[in-house]
Structure formats: structure tokens, C-alpha cells
């Protein structure tokens, strides 16, 4: 779909490119290649057949080009390193080995451009292409400036865009000037400048700027997608003559761009497992060719009391499709299937209008669309325009029902007018609204008053801000205002962090890293570009300006971090009481529990622990609980009692951590692991282990969870892994 492109990079590989200049620790070539690799790898990433790339080396030791073969003069030391073609990883690897500085400087940059241009002409014929030549050089080798005008004319005729990026070229706009520039280079810069001037479509730039701009993430352009083309109605035109129908088109305005997604792969068998271990030493070139995609295969099982483990495999062919209604499974025949889908007709119709002030943005359920009138349809244009302006004037939004195409699920949209006063873009924006089922009613206490148990309403309370706090907060919020915290191109105050500066950090972080790895598989991962973390903290200047207000707020707020739970083995904790404050313990006290009954195990275990005064009580209770867990597993039919056993185990673990007795738990769970896996608990109990103990994170208590545990994270992981 995308437009066709033919780009030829002309890269100066002359001996001087191997030197480092202007305080850089990398050679001119490496510096320049940062730009080139970035561009080329972007093309590789797109993997589009129609985006083609060619590479010409300038100042190469050897000579390899058509013009030279034809016997033309002045084409020495120019080599076609890669003919124009689609750019693959293989081509990238090959190219990488060819980009080395030479021992010569005998090539002519202008000739190289001619070589590139004729490659493009030959490849693209007269077809629709965007044609581009990018020259990267430090211009230390002499340039023949005799034929600048005719070369430029050729480029213009072929509609080729020329970009010249010079290492350490002077650029007043960017603000760079190389001191002690050699006379040759200065002259060459002028020559190249002239050439660019003769071209219709050309730019000259300095490499430092180009490299700097690489840090700005590039946004993948996406063609506008028309989601809807049809009437927007007010009323039902099929039944009422009065009904309004406006022919509109709908496009996406926002669409969440996904971060690069990883595929599941494994080593191709021919590379084998043995080599896997080599990669730690960096011996294997992990270019990627040795991987192949992993597919998923599904197997199906059903419960069968007669089968070992209570389950058996069934063939996919034996299965019918269906739905679950609660726990009832409802099989559907093919013909029944369509009935469950609501029959809908393509439709975009307005239900009514609401004041815009009644619409809170947080009701939005997703991505925005744009609604415009059908092109070249005067009636639609005027009608939609009138609707947009009417909505704007009375500060209202429309609520509409939207069915994208026949059979699609209806959605509710809020239509907001954009009268195009500021941006010359008159349209309606639409955002999806929630349905009744999407709403979960959660209750929260009020934030501006406290209601006591007795129903009294308090307006002064430790949970409510004092007047001082309210005022300090107000000053703080005003001081931290971002609406003028930035500056625009002309130095005027501008909004800080507007949406067009918000780059999705993970997308660009991953793209950077993937590209870097594609170009150089051995290079370590670099830290993320600063730009991506720019908005992770408030701007420094603003913080400095608001320092006083921040300090005042902190002082008045008196927020205190809750200390890590004070642990005491048998310290008397505050007892939980019902609303009445009744002391249940004293009721229980009359018959202080020492034994735990299996059917009320958790409450009784907790109650013993709550009042335990010595180690023996804890150990005894743990022992009893352990027995209950084992018996639950042992007597479980299939997995029926596993959840209960796991819950008991979880409570036991939690309480033993609280009481600083991790060893007691770790001993028990170690023994339990052996029992469940060895089959000594009356059958195959591996599911209990895998799903409930491993899956429920009920493994060993680590020294992270309890200081006195000698178990490290590593040991705990291994414990769960080993079977």
C-alpha cells in the first residue's frame, strides 16, 4: 500500500573518515554511520518490498560502477556496495562488513551522486517513486565543481531529492562553525552548497544536527482509515419525512499504537541446544537467523471419574462449540450460532443532546473518531456545519448510537463539535460512552466530611484538610502551573508537555533497542534516550520557582510514612471487635481452644495464634493445621478439596511469618512437596502442587518475607521449580 521509495546512500569511506575530529572519540565514519544506520534500519524494520535502498561507497580502494565500465572518466574510487533493492537483515549484515574506511581519497563526490542518480533512473524507470540520494561525507577529498549545474539539472529532471549531510559542516542556523577548517574542506562545502542551491529539492545539513535529531522518536505514519461512510441521522428517515439525514464519513482520530510485540520462538533444531550456552560468551552471533516461530497446539480434556486423575483427553473432532451460562454449558449447533448475535443494521443516529458541562471526560471508554461531511456533497457539508456550530453555540454535545456496519455491535457515542475556529478543521469528534453493564457501583465515603458511626457529620477531622492545608494546596497547585512553563520557537511562554510532545516511552525504547541490536548484535544495551523520560518528573525550573510553596505544603500536610509493621512474637495486639465493641475473646476465653477442628480450621487456628503465649502452642497448632492440610489433599476426590487445603496453607504461612517462625512452615511445605509429588497422598496430587502451591505462591518463606528465614529468593525459586 505504501508509496514506493528508492533511496541511495552515498557514503564517504575515504581514509580521512577514519580520523576523529572536533573532540569526538569516534571516527567521522562511525559518527556519520549513526545517521545512516538509523535510517537504513528503519527501512529494514518496515520490511516493505517497495522501500528500496542502494548504497554507493565514495573513496573506496577499488572501483566498481557502470560509468567507469563504460569508460567515462572521473569515476575512480567509487563502488556500488549494494544495488538498489529491498533491504533485509541479510543485506544489512553484508553491508555492515563493507563499511570500512579505505586507504585512499581519490573519489569525487559529485561523480558518486551521478552514479547514484543513474542507479535510480535505471531502477525506477518512469514509475511513481519517491527518489532520494543521501550523501554523507566529511568533504576532505577534493571535489570537482565543474558540472554542478548540469548534475543538478539531471537530478531535477528525474525528480530526485538530494540530502547532503556533512561531518562538521558549518551551519549558521544550527549554530555550528568548525574552527581551523582545512581550505579544501571549506571549498568543498561551498561547492556542495552550490549544488544544493541548483536543485529544486535538496538540503544541506551538518551531521551533528542530524545525529541529534535521531533522538527525536519518529512516528510511524498511518493512512487515515475510513471507518464509516453513510448517513448520520436525526429521526428515522424511513418512517418520518421530517427526519434529518446527513451523509458523513468517519475516521479515527486516536488509535492506541501498540509497543513492538515479542514473538515466541525457539532455536531452529539445526542450531541445537549446545550452542545456546555459548551466547553468554558472545561467541554466537545472535543475529536472529537461528530462531523460528513457535506455534501453539491445543489439547482438550474432560472430567471423567473413571479415568486416572479424574480427567481424560478428548479429540477436537468430538467437540461442539458453545457458550457458558453461569456454570451451565450450552452447546450450540452451527445454525443456532448466528441467533446469539444481535441483528443490526449499519446506523449512526442521534438520540438527543446534553449540555457539554454534564459530560465528564473520565466517562470516555476509548478512542476518538472524527466525523466530517462527505466530500463534494454540498448539502451534507452545510448540514453538518450547521449542526456543529449549533452544538458549539449552545455548549452541547450529541449522544448517538453507532453501528459501524451491518451486524456490528451498537456503541454509544458522544459527539463533540469542533467548529474549526482555531484550526480550520470543522468536524465532530466522537468518543465511546459506557453502557449500563459497564458501570460498577463502588461505594466510597465522602471526601469533604466525615460521618461517624452515630451518623453525626463532622467537617473538622484528621481526615479532612484544615483551612491552612487547603490554602497551601491551592498555592502549590497554582505555583506548579504548566500552561506557560515552556517556551515556543519564538521564545514566548508556551504550554509544557502538550500531547504532540508526549512520545510513548516503551514504543520508542524498544524500537531503539531493537534497531541498535540489528545493526550491532554485540553492543550492550544503552540507557533510554533522555527525551523518553522527560516527563517522568516535574520540570526543574518550575520546582525551583515553587520551592517555597512546596515546603509550606509539606509542613502543613504533616504526612507520615507508616513504619514497617512492628513485629513482636507474642505482643498483645489490638483485638478486633464487632460494632458493639463486644469482647468476643472473653466469651471464647471460657473454653480456650487448643484443638483445631477440620471444619472450622482457619478461624480456630487464627484464634489460637491471637492469644498464643508460648512456642509450644504455636508449634502444636501448626502441627494440627498441617495434618488437616494433608488429610484434605489425601481425601480429595480429584481437585475438589485442593482450594480448601491451599487456603489453610496460606493462612498457616501468613501467620507463621507474622510470628517469626518461617522455619516451621518451610519444614512443613518441604515435606508436603515430597508427599504430593511422590503419590503418597493417595494418588496423583501433582495438580495440588503445580496449580495451588506453586501457582498460589505458597512456597518457602524467604528472608525477604521474614528476616530470620535462611532461604534466599533463589532457593525458593528452585524449590518451586524442581519436581
Amino acid at each position, binding site marked *: 500500500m505504501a508509496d514506493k521509495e528508492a533511496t541511495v546512500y552515498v557514503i564517504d569511506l575515504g581514509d580521512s573518515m577514519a580520523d576523529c575530529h572536533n573532540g569526538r572519540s569516534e571516527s567521522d565514519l562511525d559518527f556519520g554511520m549513526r545517521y545512516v544506520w538509523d535510517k537504513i534500519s528503519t527501512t529494514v524494520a518496515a520490511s516493505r518490498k517497495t522501500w528500496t535502498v542502494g548504497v554507493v561507497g565514495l573513496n573506496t580502494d577499488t572501483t566498481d560502477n557502470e560509468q567507469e565500465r563504460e569508460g567515462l572518466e572521473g569515476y575512480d574510487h567509487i563502488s556500488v556496495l549494494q544495488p538498489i533493492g529491498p533491504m533485509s537483515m541479510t543485506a544489512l549484515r553484508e553491508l555492515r562488513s563493507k563499511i570500512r574506511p579505505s586507504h585512499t581519497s581519490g573519489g569525487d563526490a559529485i561523480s558518486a551522486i551521478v552514479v547514484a542518480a543513474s542507479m535510480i533512473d535505471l531502477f525506477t524507470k518512469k514509475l511513481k517513486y519517491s527518489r532520494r540520494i543521501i550523501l554523507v561525507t566529511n568533504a576532505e577529498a577534493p571535489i570537482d565543481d565543474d558540472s554542478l549545474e548540469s548534475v543538478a539539472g539531471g537530478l531535477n529532471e528525474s525528480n530526485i531529492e538530494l540530502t547532503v549531510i556533512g561531518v562538521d559542516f558549518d551551519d549558521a542556523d544550527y549554530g555550528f562553525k568548525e574552527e581551523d577548517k582545512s581550505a579544501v574542506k571549506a571549498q568543498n562545502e561551498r561547492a556542495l552548497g552550490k549544488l544544493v542551491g541548483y536543485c529544486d529539492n535538496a538540503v544541506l545539513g551538518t551531521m551533528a544536527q542530524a545525529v541529534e535529531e535521531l533522538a527525536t522518536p519518529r512516528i510511524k505514519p498511518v493512512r487515515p482509515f475510513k471507518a464509516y461512510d453513510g448517513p448520520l441521522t436525526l*429521526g428515522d428517515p424511513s418512517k*418520518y419525512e421530517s427526519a434529518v439525514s446527513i451523509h458523513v464519513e468517519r475516521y479515527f482520530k486516536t488509535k492506541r499504537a501498540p509497543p513492538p510485540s515479542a*514473538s515466541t520462538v525457539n532455536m531452529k533444531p539445526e542450531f541445537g541446544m549446545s550452542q545456546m550456552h555459548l551466547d553468554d560468551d558472545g561467541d554466537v552471533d545472535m543475529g536472529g537467523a537461528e530462531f523460528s516461530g513457535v506455534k501453539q497446539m491445543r489439547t482438550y480434556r474432560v472430567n471423567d471419574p473413571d479415568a486416572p486423575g479424574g480427567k481424560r483427553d478428548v479429540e477436537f473432532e468430538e467437540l461442539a462449540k458453545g457458550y457458558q451460562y453461569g456454570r451451565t454449558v450450552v452447546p450450540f449447533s452451527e445454525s443456532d450460532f448466528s441467533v446469539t448475535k444481535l441483528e443490526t443494521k449499519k446506523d449512526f443516529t442521534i438520540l438527543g*443532546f446534553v449540555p457539554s458541562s454534564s459530560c465528564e471526560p473520565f466517562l470516555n471508554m476509548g478512542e476518538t473518531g472524527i466525523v466530517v461531511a462527505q466530500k463534494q456533497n454540498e448539502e451534507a457539508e452545510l448540514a453538518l456545519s450547521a449542526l456543529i456550530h449549533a452544538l458549539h453555540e449552545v455548549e452541547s454535545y450529541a449522544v448517538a448510537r453507532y453501528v459501524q456496519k451491518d451486524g456490528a455491535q*451498537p456503541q454509544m457515542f458522544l459527539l463533540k463539535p469542533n467548529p474549526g475556529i482555531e484550526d480550520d478543521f470543522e468536524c465532530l469528534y466522537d468518543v465511546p460512552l459506557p453502557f449500563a453493564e459497564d*458501570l460498577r457501583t463502588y461505594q466510597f465515603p465522602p471526601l469533604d466530611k466525615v460521618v461517624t458511626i452515630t451518623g453525626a457529620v463532622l467537617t473538622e477531622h484528621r481526615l479532612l484538610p484544615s483551612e491552612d492545608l487547603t490554602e497551601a494546596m491551592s498555592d502549590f497547585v497554582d505555583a506548579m502551573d504548566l500552561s506557560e512553563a515552556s517556551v515556543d520557537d519564538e521564545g514566548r511562554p508556551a504550554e509544557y508537555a502538550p500531547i504532540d510532545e508526549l512520545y510513548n516511552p516503551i514504543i520508542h525504547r524498544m524500537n531503539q533497542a531493537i534497531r541498535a541490536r540489528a545493526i550491532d548484535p554485540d553492543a550492550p544495551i544503552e540507557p533510554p534516550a533522555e527525551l523518553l523520560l522527560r516527563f517522568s518528573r*516535574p520540570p526543574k525550573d518550575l520546582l525551583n520557582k515553587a520551592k517555597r510553596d512546596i515546603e509550606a505544603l509539606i509542613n502543613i500536610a504533616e504526612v507520615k510514612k507508616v513504619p514497617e509493621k512492628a513485629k513482636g512474637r507474642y505482643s498483645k495486639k489490638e483485638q478486633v471487635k464487632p460494632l458493639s465493641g463486644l469482647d468476643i475473646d472473653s466469651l471464647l476465653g471460657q473454653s480456650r481452644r487448643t484443638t483445631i477442628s477440620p471444619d472450622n480450621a482457619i478461624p480456630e487456628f487464627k484464634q489460637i495464634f491471637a492469644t498464643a503465649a508460648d512456642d509450644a502452642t504455636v508449634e502444636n497448632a501448626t502441627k494440627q493445621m498441617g495434618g488437616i492440610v494433608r488429610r484434605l489433599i489425601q481425601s480429595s476426590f480429584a481437585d475438589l478439596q485442593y482450594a480448601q487445603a491451599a487456603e489453610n496453607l496460606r493462612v498457616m504461612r501468613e501467620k507463621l511469618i507474622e510470628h517469626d517462625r518461617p522455619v516451621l512452615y518451610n519444614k512443613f511445605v518441604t515435606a508436603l512437596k515430597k508427599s504430593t509429588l511422590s503419590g503418597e497422598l493417595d494418588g496423583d496430587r501433582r495438580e495440588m502442587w503445580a496449580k495451588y502451591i506453586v501457582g498460589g505462591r505458597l512456597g518457602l518463606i524467604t528472608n525477604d518475607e521474614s528476616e530470620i528465614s535462611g532461604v534466599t529468593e533463589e532457593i525458593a525459586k528452585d524449590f518451586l521449580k524442581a519436581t
Partner: protein
Amino acid sequence: MMAWGGDEERRFGGSDEDEEELDETDFKTQKDAVLFAIDISSSMLEPPPYGNDKKAAKDSAVDAALKCVYQIMQQRIIAQPKDMMGILLFGTEKSKFRDESGTRSSYPHCYLLSDLDVPAAEDVKMLKSMVEEQEDPDDVLVPATEETALMSNVLFCANQVFTTNAANFGSRRLFIITDNDNPHDGDKTAQSSAAVRAKDLYDLGVIIELFPISRHGKQFDISKFYDDIIYRDPAAEAGSSDEVKTARSGDGLTLLASLISNINSKQTAKRSYFSNVAFELAPGLTISVNGYIPLHRQQPARTCYVWQGGEQAQLAQSETLKVDSEARTVEKSEVKKAYKFGGEYIYFKPDEAKKLKESLGEPDGKPIIRVIGFKPRALLPIWASVKKSVFIFPSEVGFVGSTRVFSALWQKLLKSKKMGLAWFISRSNANPIMVAILPSKNPEEDGSGSLALPAGLWLYPLPFVDDVRNVDLAIKPKNADELTDKMRDIVQNLQLPKAVYNPAKYPNPSLQWHYKILQAMALDEEVPETLDDATIPKYRQMDKRVGAYMAEWKEEVASKAKELMKSRAVKREVDDDDGGARPAKRAKATTKKPSGLSNNAQLKLAVEEDTLKKMTVADLKDVLASKGLSTAGKKVELLERVEQWVEDNV
């Protein structure tokens, strides 16, 4: 360890993508189990006194309770298909607990009508016949005559139900519906043992919610008995009043409506999306908040595979095996994650992948909401929407004083019409996003009141520049003042009820239909033919209210359109004249205007005169693209497509 493989391989079809956004449903303990305990006494069964209002319900309290349970059961099957429900009647003459019944039951006068489980079709069916046909096949709705149920037995019975059926559920609640505020009047021992059993339930992690019914104007006094039974959740938000609301008929509200509203408000267990997350207002000022998702798009359940080889249709559980290109099973340890790039894979070692991910997070890897500043609300573009918002509410668990600071911020943002801007990482290792922090008004001050959205702050996700599509259409505002004026009348006369979009009034038609059919199939009932779809506009009303305005407006639009068409035609001629030979100019890279044949009239002419095929493939593609049509295929196909479009649209 990397976060993939094994159980995390959700979604059917083995999607190859990392699902970045885990929802709260992914935490399996986040399941909810509710056991309804309904008091069956003669007063609960007594029909309400006849009032003057003909519409007044004739439901007894038990009827109302069962109707309410029936409704909630149907809702939960749609909204929370993994959650459990059960019904326990107490005070009944009959006793039944699973296999035990009659005098053998360990819980006399407790009747477990439907055991705690994910509701099945039979449960719905049974309830339906009870509430709609007043059927009571087993005569269970008969109060005990001589002695009645001991509350300690009721509570222990509930304890057993939860212990065995919903052992590891994150939320377990016992809903008691009764009109008796003093079941053990004077019997201290009975009262004490009930209190002890209530403590057991508390220790088990079961929350008791009381739904008292007040009858004959008598106050339900919870201090008589229930204060000993009910505990507050210590982890609940500070300042939470957790008040017990009494249901009663009157004030134009039936007992049923009152009870349903009370139960509905507690129906969904409050599930937090995250808890105790640091909310950094400024360097040195951090408070703690919990996050919730009060708005979440509900989708019809996916299809499943059913095995019908046994006595009963049974769900087939699937397991995935990973296989390589040669269909060999791949061990978990062999599986790597790599990125497709230029037709090959780019691989990062696990520690590198981890490092990549961590480099955007906090040094301690913890989630964070960090305010970077504030802006006027007006700076939020109206189109800036990408996904649902997260609601946050203060918690004193991490920082004492969080609530008052949060409240001060909330009040300030409301008062000054400002919003916060924040960097937000919802979980450790989640990808950072930018959010606007927006305050919601107090429900009672909202005017609408009915929206039922809580007051607090919302994290409203902002689109990244990557998410914004550049729709390159310059559309200048038209000058149509009279049309606008007339349309204004229409807009003002077609306001939605109460001038607000209240989601509760618009059930999702696809979902409703799906479950209606499913229910009919599951219950062997007749499949309904139509759906009462609230999202369809009230056409008749619209015609009545603004029909005349609209007709008039339409006429005017038509006449203005003619004028506009004419003036454009003139302009076109002028352009053509001084442009000379048309197709020479090639548009610059700015707006991609298709060549000569851009407008419909010219296209039509070209079709009629059969000159269309003179266009180049590129030009045809431009035309198609401008109409939003596919540009794939050979020239013949492109030509056909253009012609078809002209035929259909011009």
C-alpha cells in the same frame, strides 16, 4: 522470570502478542462469592398493607428478597461469570443442608435452597418459577412453628458453605435479609454463641452485610443484636461509614425497589486495581492511594468447546502445547521471546529484556503516580481520549495524612477547574503512561445524582503522539448562520432526560440479546424474537417535538446547497480557464490532492465518456484512497472499483 508462558497464555488462538494491559480479573483470588441468607418468618411472608396506590407492590418481604436475588443472579451471570452465589433460607420449618435434610440436618431450620456455586441454568429456573409463578414445590417458604433457627447455626452453616465451596476467593460475603432486629430476645446464651460464630466468620475472611427491612413503621434497631455480629473491614478506606440502610416501602418506593437499591449498592465486591500506590504530589510529598476501575467494557463471553459424549454436556478444558516448525513439542526452557525485524528475529537475553523494561520504571521497580504539574482543564483537547480511566482514592495504609492531602487537592482542582498531569506506572514493570488527573464532583452536588460515580480523582489516560492519527482534511468552517440558528432550536428541544447521559439507562443491546438467547436455550424456553433496545432513539417523540423545525431546516439546507454548488461551479470554470492545460501541476508533499478528477462530477463525466481508463494506476489509487476504498489490485480492478463507486454515490 519473564512474564509469559504457562497459565498466562490467555486468550484463545494463542495470541503472539504480549498483552501489556492485564486487567484486574487476571488475579484469580479476585473472585467474589455471595451467600444470601433470607429470613423466613410470618412477618416476612406477610403481604404489604393495601394502600391507595394501585401500583403499590403486593410483594411480601420474602417475595421482594427472592425477586432481588433472581435479578442479581441474572446480572452476575453476565457481568461476573466466574463469581459464585448461593441462597440460604433460615427460620424455615424444613431443614436441608446438602445431603442432609429434615431432622438429620446439623443446622435445624436452615434450608440451603441453592448451594454456593457459579449459578447454573437450573438455579435461575427455580428462582424464576418461585418469583414469577409463586411456585414453592417443596413448601420451603413455611416458617418454623415451635422453635426457630439459632443465629449461631445460620452463621456456622454459612461458614461451612464458604469454607468448602469458595475456599480461596478474594471476596466472600454473607448478605442477611431480615426484618427481625432481635432474633434471640433475652436469650443471652444464644446471643453469645451467635457472636462467637460471627467472629469465626470474620476470622475466615467472610464479611457480613445486613439488609434490614423495616415494617409497619417500626425502626430496625441494629444495636439489639446485629452490632455484635457485624465487623468493619479494617482495610476499608478511612472514614468509611459503611452505614446499614434499612429498606422500607413508602415515599413512592416499593419495598422491592428499596431493597434492590440497597443490595445493588453492595452487589459488586469492591475490587481494587491496585492498592497502596505512591502518589507523589511533589518531591518530598507522597501519599498513598488505591485504584479502582468503575467503568469497564463488558463483552459477551467467548465461545467454548463442549463435549457431549457423557450424560451431561461438559466443558472441555484446553491445554496448550508449544510446538516448533516441525511440530515437535518445545520445552518451556527452550522458548525465547524475540522481536520480528526485517523478516528475522532480534533476540534479547532474559536479563537484557528485564533491563530494557526496568530502565523506564522507578529505581525500586514500584508503581508510581507522579504529578509533574497542573494545567487549566481547558487545555485538555476534547479529542484526547484513548482508554478508560482509573479511579483513585486515598488510603492511610502507606502514609498517615493521605486522606486530608488528597481531599485538599480534590477540592482545589474542582474549585479552580484545573487538572494535574502525571507520569503513571500502574504496577511494577508496567509501561509508563501519561495521565490527566481529573476530579469528579460529589454525587449529590452533581445535579444528576443518578450517575452513581464516586467523588474522587480519576487518572485519565492521555494519548501519546504515537496514538494520534493525522487526518489530513482541511475543512474550513462554512458560513451558514441561519442554518445554525434553526439547528439550535432543534438541539435545545431534544435534550436527553435530565439533561445528562446516564449509562444506567442504556443497557448494551448486544449483551442483552446474547444472554437472553443463551438463557432461553439454557432454560429450554422459547427464544425471544425481539429485544427492547433502549439505545434506539424515540423516533415518534422526536418527530412530534421537532419535526416541524427539521422539515423547515431541511428545505433551507437544500436551497443553500444549490447556491453553494453553483458558486463552486463558477469558480471551477474560472480555475480551469486560467489554469489552461489541467493535469500539469503536481501537488507538493503537503496535502495529497488527487489529480484533475478529484471531484465527483468530473469523475462521473469521465465514467460516462469512458475516459477513466486514461488515468494512471497511481491516479486511480489516489482517487480510491480519497474515497476510503481499497487500492489493491490490477488496473482493471481499480477501474471497476472507481466505476462502481461513482455508480453508487454520484
